[in-house]
């Protein structure tokens, strides 16, 4: 009887100690969750594990504040993208050996910080896009044997570095994204498609004839003026009504200018002393108006 009592007491004692232990653990967890929320983080429980995000409201997250995440233990997901953390902050990842998803994109994390990441044996997803990491970091990541996806867009890694890591981690999908410098050229054809233009007739007025007295109005079109003469010329629009001249531009030798206009408008070309050289009468099509080289 006595013996049973003793066993019972011991059991109760063990239970009490156990309860206190788990109570303390629950307390620690609550504190960690509260601390993370206080600095703008989101904590979501998934079973007995945790997902922690700072990328929306917690962007001011500083290196030392990551210690609160370390306090949470069973963290499987951590997103600190776009925050202020640097390589130094990653020292707090050390105890997070359950971590499977880690977002470090768009941070100041560099090669030095990857040392701490490479020790996370269960890591399956690692996003480093927009960081300054180089091939040095890739060398360390070869230790992450469970890594399924690695994102390296807009980093300083090289083709050789990536190829070498891919040999070490044959099953990992390494995403490098589009090459922005090539991207622009692949779409450049449509950015500046040369328009089909008809040639506008140049009417010389230096030897004979006169420019029209005024412009008429018509359909909207675009003229590309080009000065192929060896001296600068001035471009005037001959107005409606009284035909007043309106100055638009001075074109240096070889210069071009795109000009909005209307058909039946008249454009006068003069030399620098405002002496008329010739004119163009606009047609309905987009056109090319060349001030010729020989006569002016």
């Amino acid at each position, binding site marked *: 009887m006595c013996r049973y009592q003793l066993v019972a007491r011991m059991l109760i004692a063990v239970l009490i100690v156990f309860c206190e232990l788990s109570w303390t653990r629950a307390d620690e967890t609550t504190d960690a969750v509260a601390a993370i929320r206080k600095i703008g983080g989101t904590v979501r429980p998934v079973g007995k594990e945790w997902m922690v995000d700072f990328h*929306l*409201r917690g962007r001011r997250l500083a290196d030392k504040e990551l210690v609160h995440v370390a306090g949470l233990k069973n963290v499987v997901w951590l997103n600190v993208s776009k925050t202020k953390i640097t390589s130094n902050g990653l020292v707090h990842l050390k105890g997070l050996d359950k971590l499977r998803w880690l977002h470090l994109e768009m941070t100041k994390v560099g090669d030095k910080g990857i040392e701490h990441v490479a020790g996370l044996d269960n890591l399956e997803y690692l996003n480093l896009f927009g960081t300054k990491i180089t091939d040095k970091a890739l060398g360390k990541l070869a230790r992450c044997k469970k890594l399924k996806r690695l994102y390296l867009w807009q980093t300083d890694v090289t083709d050789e570095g990536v190829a070498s890591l891919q040999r070490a981690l044959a099953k990992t999908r390494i995403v490098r994204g589009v090459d922005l410098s090539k*991207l*622009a050229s692949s779409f450049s054809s449509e950015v500046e498609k040369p328009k089909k233009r008809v040639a506008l007739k140049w009417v010389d007025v230096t030897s004979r004839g006169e420019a029209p007295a005024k412009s008429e109005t018509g359909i909207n079109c675009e003229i590309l003026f080009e000065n192929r003469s060896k001296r600068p010329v001035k471009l005037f629009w001959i107005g409606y009504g009284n035909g007043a001249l309106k100055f638009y531009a001075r074109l240096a030798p070889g210069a071009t200018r795109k000009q909005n206009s209307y058909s039946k408008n008249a454009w006068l070309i003069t030399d620098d002393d405002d002496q008329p050289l010739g004119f163009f009468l606009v047609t309905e099509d987009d056109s090319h108006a060349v001030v010729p080289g020989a006569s002016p």
Partner: protein
Amino acid sequence: MIYLWGGIAHQESWDPKPEALSELRGEFQPISTATPGVQFSEHIPLMAKHSEKLAVIRSLNHHVGAHGGALYTSITGQKAPLGKAKDRKNWPSLTAMVSRFCEVPGGTPPAIAMPYLNYDNGALIQGQFGGWLGVDYDPIMMRTPAGKPYGGTSRYTNSELALKLELGRNRVEGRRSLREKLERQVGAQADFKRFDRFRQMAAEMLLSSPVKEAYDLENEDPRIRVMYGDHIGGQSMLLARRLTEAGVPVVQVNAGAGDLAGGSGDNWDTHRGHFPKMKKRLLPVFDRSLSALLTDLEQRGSLDETLVAVVTDFGRTPKINKNGGRDHFPAVFTQIMAGGGIRGGQVYGSSDRDGARPASDSCTPGDFHATVLTAMGIDPRTELPDREGRPFQICGGKPLPLF
């Protein structure tokens, strides 16, 4: 969610029919995709390169042959009732329903739709809103601030949000404090509180939130903007990506002119001149913008966490009509999904030789919805109380085995 208003022809996009009878076959040729054995139409060559990311569901069907009811069925997963566009008895759209289960911080709308709502000859179509979930879940309409518009008619209401206001912080805060003084005199009536909630959200958005930052497309790398294309279709996809990054849980892009206007304009209701319109106007913008979105999500490492679902009214008739068009056809059509844990490089179900009936694994918009909900971590059997407090299961379909 990308919505293709008017009904994209399955034959000229995801489900080419090269073996169909010659009078049904159409002008386009099939091309190989990155997935062995899967072909797309020749005019979505960029999407063909992304096939390893896609689940293509070729056996969808329902019974509604008119646009209004078909949009309702596709977007809510339910049979179409006869009611008004904003009737609270309506079923919530998929966009609204998913947003119901997402937590958002202040200043972040639970759901955004852009660049305009879907109309048919001036009539606003039912099913695009929060329905019995309540006004809190009506997606916020947002104007895409850049890109060439779709040809044809698109309607703006008075309530689209354009965050490009040149208001300084002081002015917004000044207005808010003035408003608070005035409101103390009004009291706390329910309608007023509700109105206030939206205004609060708008003020927070204007002041500081990542949503405002995301809205400013000028902040994006110009080369990435070029990748999406200088068209409102492309810039809307880009804005959608930026908004989801800023914490908006669900974004709906309506990829076509907002009003069908009798099949004129750049929408998918191609009763006339189907082939030239698809080839020259619709598919190039769609192909480029959607493939840019997938490329971009992938390189940022967010495709696994982001579900992209392409939804449409219905498919189009195998028969080509006398105006060189294809007409409404709900008996079989195709929708696609990518990311969000969906296994890529797969085709679910099939249509027959002529693209006229499901040939295998027939499925419904409800099944499509159940799949989307499951991908978003929401049990399709979840019960919610409606406006009379009666419990409803949120989805009648069964998830498709796409994971």
